[in-house]
C-alpha cells in the first residue's frame, strides 16, 4: 500500500528525513513540558472559565 510513497521519495529523502526530525524534536519538547507541569497549576488553569467575576447584575447599566 505504501510502495508508491517510498518510490516517490528517491532523491528527495532530505525533505522527508528532516521533516521527521523536526516532528520528533517538537514532540519530545512538548512532552517534556507537559510532564514538568505542576498539578496545582493545572487545576488552577482548568478552573479559569468557571470563575465568575460578575458582580450583582443590578449594578450593570443598560443602553
Amino acid at each position: 500500500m505504501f510502495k508508491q510513497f517510498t518510490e516517490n521519495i528517491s532523491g528527495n529523502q532530505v525533505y522527508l528525513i528532516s521533516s521527521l526530525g523536526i516532528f520528533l524534536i517538537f514532540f519530545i519538547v512538548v512532552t517534556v513540558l507537559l510532564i514538568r507541569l505542576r498539578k496545582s497549576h493545572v487545576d488552577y488553569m482548568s478552573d479559569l472559565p468557571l470563575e465568575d467575576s460578575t458582580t450583582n447584575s443590578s449594578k450593570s447599566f443598560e443602553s
Partner: protein
Amino acid sequence: MQPEKFYYDNKIVRNFGIATVVWGIIGMTVGLIIAIQLYHPAMNMGNQYTSFGRVRPLHTNAVIFAFVGNAIFMGVYYSLQRLLKARMFSDLLSNIHFWGWQLIIVSAVITLPLGLTTSHEYAELEWPIDIAITIIWVIFGINMFGTIFKRRERHLYVAIWFYIATFVTIAVLHIVNSIELPVTFWKSYMVFAGVQDALVQWWYGHNAVAFFLTTPYLGMMYYFLPKMANRPIYSYKLSILHFWALIFLYIWAGPHHLLYSTLPGWAQSLGVAFSIMLIAPSWGGMINGLLTLRGAWDKVRDDVVLKFMVVGLTAYGMATFEGPMLSLKQINAIAHFSDWIIAHVHTGALGWNGFLTFAILYWLIPRIYKTELFSKKLASFHFWIGTLGILFYVVPMYWAGFTQSLMLKEFTAEGMLKYPNFLETTLRIIPMHVVRSIGGSMYLLGVIVMAYNLTRTALQGKLVANEAAQAMPLEPVHTIARDSTWHRMLERKPIQFMMLALLVILVGSFVELMPTLTISSNIPTIASVKPYTPLELQGRDLYIREGCSNCHSQTVRPFRSETERYGEYSKAGEFVYDHPFLWGSKRTGPDLARIGGKYGNSWHYNHMMDPRLMSPGSIMPNYDWLLTQTLDTTTTVAKINAMRTLGVPYAPGYEKIANKDLDKQAQGIADNLAKDHIKVKNNKEVIAIIAYLQRLGTDIKANKTANNN
C-alpha cells in the same frame, strides 16, 4: 489591594451574534439555490449574475467568512473579556472591526456575482478587498492584544492560545495567498503560476479550514463547554498537547489536496504523512471535549445546548478521521473531484461549525439579555431537524460520490470505458442531488426557527449592554515567584506566545513551500509550451470571471481511466504561464485540460448558447450572454504588461501590437464559424473563450508533432 470594578461589553457580542444569524440564513439560502441548480438548470435564472459558477463562491464565502466569521468574533469577544477579566481594549476598535467586517461581506456579495474574482478558492475576493481584510484583521489583532495587555488574570487560558494562533496564522495565510499583481482596479494576476500557485493556494485553502473553521472553534469549545456543563475541561494537559500538536501538524498537510497532480512527489508524500498524524491531535481535542461531559450525560438528555455540542463534537471527530483517510492516495483517487468531498466538508461545516455556533447562541443570548430562552421546544425541534438535515445532506452525497467515481473508472471486458460520456454519470446521480437539497432545506429551516426563537428571547429580555464585574488588579511582576516551568511562564507572556506559535506554523510552511517555489528543477519545463495569445488570455479571464473552474478541473491524473477519457496526463511544465492556476477541485462536469481541438468551434458556440443543444440533459447553465457581450480589449495592453512583469516571455513592445493579433485571431474564428452558418461578429466574448478552450492542452501535442517530423 482593592478589587477593581469594570464592565464587560455585551453589545458587541450581541451585534456579532445578529450578524451570525442573518448571514447564516443568507449564506445557506444561496447554498440551497446552487444545490438546486445542479439538477434544475433553470434555477440559474437565465442571467449571468446568478449562474452557478459565480454564485458558488458567494455561498462558500458567505458561510465561511460571514456566518462562521461573525460567530468566531461573537465567541471570542464574549470569552476573551471574561477569561482576562477585562473589557475589550477599545470600543472604537470593536465597532470598526464589526462594521468593517460587514462591509467586506457586502462587497463580496456585490463583486462575486459581477464575476470579479481571483479564482483562488475561499480567497476569491479581488485585491482591494484583500487589503481591506488585512486592515480589519489587524484591527481585530490590536483589539485582542490590547485586551490581553490590560488583563486582570495573569495566565492565559488555552482558549486564548487558540485565538492567538488563529490571528497570527490567518494573517500569514491571507497575505501569502493574496500576493497578486493588480492589472486594473478589479483585476489582478497571481504572482505565482501553475504548480507553485496551486501549492500556495492549497497551503492556504487547507489551513483556512484549520485556522478559521477549527482553531477558533476549539478555543470556543474550551471556554463554552466547561461553562455549559459547569465543570472543568477533562484534561488541561491534553489541551496543551492538543494545541501545540494541532497547529504544528496542520500546516504541513495542504498538499493532500493535490495528490496525483503535477506537484513534486515528495511534497505529496509529506502532505499525506502529516495528514495521517493529524488524527492524533484532532481526536485528542474531541475526546477532551466529550470526556468533559463524563458523569454529566444526564444533563445532555435535558439540555439542548449540550445536545448541539455533543453532535458538533462527534461531527468534528468524524470529519477529522475522514480527512486523513481521504488523503491516502488509494482513497483519494476515488474521492477527489467527486461529491464525496462535498459530503466531507459539510459534515464539518454543518455539524461542527454550525452546531457549535447554535449551541453558543442558545447559551449566550439569554445570558446577555438576562432572561430565559423563549422556547426550549423550538430549540429541540431545531436540534432534531438540523441533525436529520445533516444526514439527508451527507448520505446522498457519499452515495453520489462513490457512484460517479466508480462509473467514471469502469472499463468493459474489451478494455473500453464503460461510460465514455461523462454526462451519463451526471444524470445517474441527480436523484441523490435532489435528496441533498431536501437535507439542506431541513437544516436551513432549523436555522430560521432558531432566528425566531432568539428574537423572541431578546424581545422578552433586555440587553445588558455593559455587564458589571470586579476583579483584583494584577500584582506587579517582580512580586510573584519565578515560575518553575517554562510553559507556565509562557502562559503569562502573550507576545512571546504569539511568536512561538508563528514559528511553529512557519516551520512546516517553509519546508513545504520553499523548495517548490525556489528550485526550478522541481518544475520541469517543456519547450513547446508557449504563452497565451492576447485573445486566449482574454478568453482565460472570461473563464475565470464565469467561475468555470468551480465545475471543471484542468488536470488529468495519471490513471488509465483518465488518460483514456481525456488524453495524456498533465505535466508540471504545461502550467508555467498560468497566473493563476485553474486546476479546480471538483468535476461536476468533465475535465478540460485537453479540450483543445476535441470539438469544432461551432460545437463550442452552440454549447455556450445552450449546452442542451449539444449534450441533451446537460446541467450546465446557458452562457448566452457571451454571444452578445462585446469583449473589452482596452485591458489587453495592461494584461500583457502585467504578465511580462510576472515573467511570461512576451517580446518587448508586443503589447502595442497585441490587439492587432487579437483581432486577427478573432476574425479567423468568426470566419470558421461562418462556414457553419453561424453569424457572429469577431468582437464578441464567445470568440475569446472559444480561442482559449481550443488552446487548452494542445501545446504538448505540438511538441509531439515536431518530434515526429
